[in-house]
């Protein structure tokens, strides 16, 4: 997996030592060189145009994250979000995981105690680096976080940063310190109180969404609209509650599967198919355009044909731990989701709340994280 190579190179001990030394910000040229070297640390090869595009994308995404930080200290939370996502990619490789954790600890040691003013100075330095960059990024334009002139949208609503009060109150005191007057005013925005502060520990809920994987959201593709589908608002992993009806249907199927006697197929049984897409055409199209490098095994099980069906099904069943009720383990689920999908092609059509019409290299990740399969 080229991800492992890149991450191993990035978190190389010597490189990290150099990075942690107090120093001036890299020049644009120097940063681009480092970026090129990192990208080519794996077997992945990009031509100049693609490399430029990737660098622009990275630059604008990071600019967005730094710019929109509610508090200066939140740039550290953004970094922790980055590291959390990186750790997720390499969670099966303890050596690299160790390297990343070590860097994590060094970051906590070095930066947790800085004052707000010092963080603001760091943030300002970064923003100067990004000044006058207005490259339009399609994913930002689509999400309406970037205007067509390339400038980012600054929200004037939502939660205020941790430590800030919702604007609108004036309190006046006399010379003894007693409050004598209280006046409210409208400041123009539509702000609310924040819920809680993000965690600055090695593990924890960061609360802040800036710096999380922006491709983990499924977005409807604008171009083709299949017949009966409605316009879907994109929903994130965190927000979507599992569709209770779909969950019930899957649980029912699992119970069926658990008690199902596998008979020899005689060809007359119609059987039923599980299709997670809105239409059959979409399913075929998605299957055709699935990138080659996604390395999960696909097992084709036809209800009416295979002699080996018993063995296949029995083996797949063995992947799941089914107790008296249906027990779902999320780790097993995310790994075996593709297996699950094809294994159950002999069962009924279940319409889902998800419309994975968008095509991208991280499709496998998105399927595995389908909101329906979040364990209750």
């Amino acid at each position, binding site marked *: 997996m080229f991800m492992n190579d890149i991450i191993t190179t990035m978190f190389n001990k010597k490189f990290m030592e150099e990075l942690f030394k*107090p120093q001036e910000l890299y020049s644009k040229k120097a940063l681009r060189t480092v970026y090129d070297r990192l990208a080519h640390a794996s077997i992945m090869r990009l031509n100049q145009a693609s490399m430029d595009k990737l660098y622009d994308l990275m630059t604008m995404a990071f600019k967005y994250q730094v710019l929109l930080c*509610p508090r200066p200290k939140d740039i550290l939370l953004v970094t922790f979000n980055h590291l959390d996502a990186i750790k997720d990619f390499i969670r099966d490789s303890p050596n690299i995981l160790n390297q990343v954790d070590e860097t994590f600890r060094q970051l906590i040691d070095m930066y947790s105690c800085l004052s707000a003013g010092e963080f603001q100075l760091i943030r300002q330095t970064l923003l100067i680096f990004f000044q006058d960059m207005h490259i339009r990024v399609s994913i930002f334009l689509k999400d309406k976080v970037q205007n067509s002139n390339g400038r980012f949208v600054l929200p*004037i609503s939502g939660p205020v940063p941790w430590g800030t009060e919702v604007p609108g109150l*004036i309190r006046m*005191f006399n*010379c003894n310190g007693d409050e004598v007057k209280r006046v409210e005013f409208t400041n123009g925005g539509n702000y609310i109180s924040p819920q809680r502060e993000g965690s600055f520990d090695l593990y924890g809920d960061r609360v802040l969404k800036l710096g999380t994987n922006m491709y983990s959201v499924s977005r409807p593709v604008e171009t083709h609209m299949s017949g009966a589908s409605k316009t879907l608002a994109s929903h994130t992993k965190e927000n979507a509650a599992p569709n209770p009806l779909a969950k019930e249907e899957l649980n029912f199927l699992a119970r069926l599967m658990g008690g199902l006697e596998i008979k020899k197929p005689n060809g007359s049984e119609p059987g039923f198919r599980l299709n997670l897409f809105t239409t059959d055409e979409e399913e075929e199209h998605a299957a055709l355009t699935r990138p080659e490098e996604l390395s999960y095994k696909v097992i084709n099980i036809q209800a009416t044909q295979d002699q080996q069906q018993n063995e296949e099904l029995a083996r797949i069943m063995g992947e799941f731990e089914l107790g008296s009720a249906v027990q779902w383990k999320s780790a097993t689920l995310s790994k075996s989701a593709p297996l699950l999908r094809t294994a159950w092609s002999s069962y009924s059509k279940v319409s889902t709340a998800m419309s994975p019409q968008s095509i991208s290299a991280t499709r496998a990740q998105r399927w595995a994280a389908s909101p329906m399969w979040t364990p209750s």
Partner: protein
Amino acid sequence: AERPAEEQQLGAVQQPERAAPARQAAHLLRRRARQHRQPGQRLGRRAQRLPPPAAGQGGRPGGQRLHRHPAQAVFARGIAAASGRFICVGTSSGLVLVFDIPSKGTNITLSEVLQEHHDSITDIASEVGENPDGAADLVTADDSGALCVWRSKEEFSLLTKISAFGWTCSSVKLWNGVIAAGYGNGQIRLYEATSGALRATVSAHARWIYALDLAPLTGKLLSGAEDSYVQIWKLSRSPDTGDIEIEHCHSECVTDTQLCGARFCDPEGNSFAATGYDLSEIVRYGQV
């Protein structure tokens, strides 16, 4: 061996003939930076530099942490004229340098160094309104949110210190004995200059306040912040009680702009201008 290097560093940006006060100042900056940091002092504690993890070292994977000072950014921030003859400049170490500007000639000398702040200076303001004798005429603010109030005659004397409440004071103004201070959490606070007593708090902005300005003829106050808003206020003093009052006058949103500078364009405060990050324009607003 260390001093020549420092002078060289500052000397690079100075004209040779004016290097004298700068060299003195640079020397003071370095000495100050080494002196005042105590281990365990939480406020304004700088980042610790970790030594590279040695192969043979036991204990924590990162090795032992050394308490020595990493390289620090050195800069000047905050400037104001005082008493018609001094220019005060704030520095990253917390020192305020007072330069004596002669009425004739170019012989600027460093007359005094004010050493009350422990964190980087953010802003300095001098009295823009009435200034009865003996009253405060200079306010200095720092990264921790502490404020110092000074009287300048022949020498500067500290009148009072206003302690921080946990947020950087990014901007400060002084008018008729009233201190207006803007903070990184979006709050504006008004203090009595002579006593340092808190007289008002305003939840003014949803983000870091960058700019404050005062129109001396009317007592109008302007605040600009990263939330893209300019807010206009009116300061006054009640004739009966002597209480300081503040009322909100106007809101202006500079769409999608994190404001970093805002000023009134006239001493009555009928017009103002603002600019922000990534903006190559100054936007001017006037009353109609």
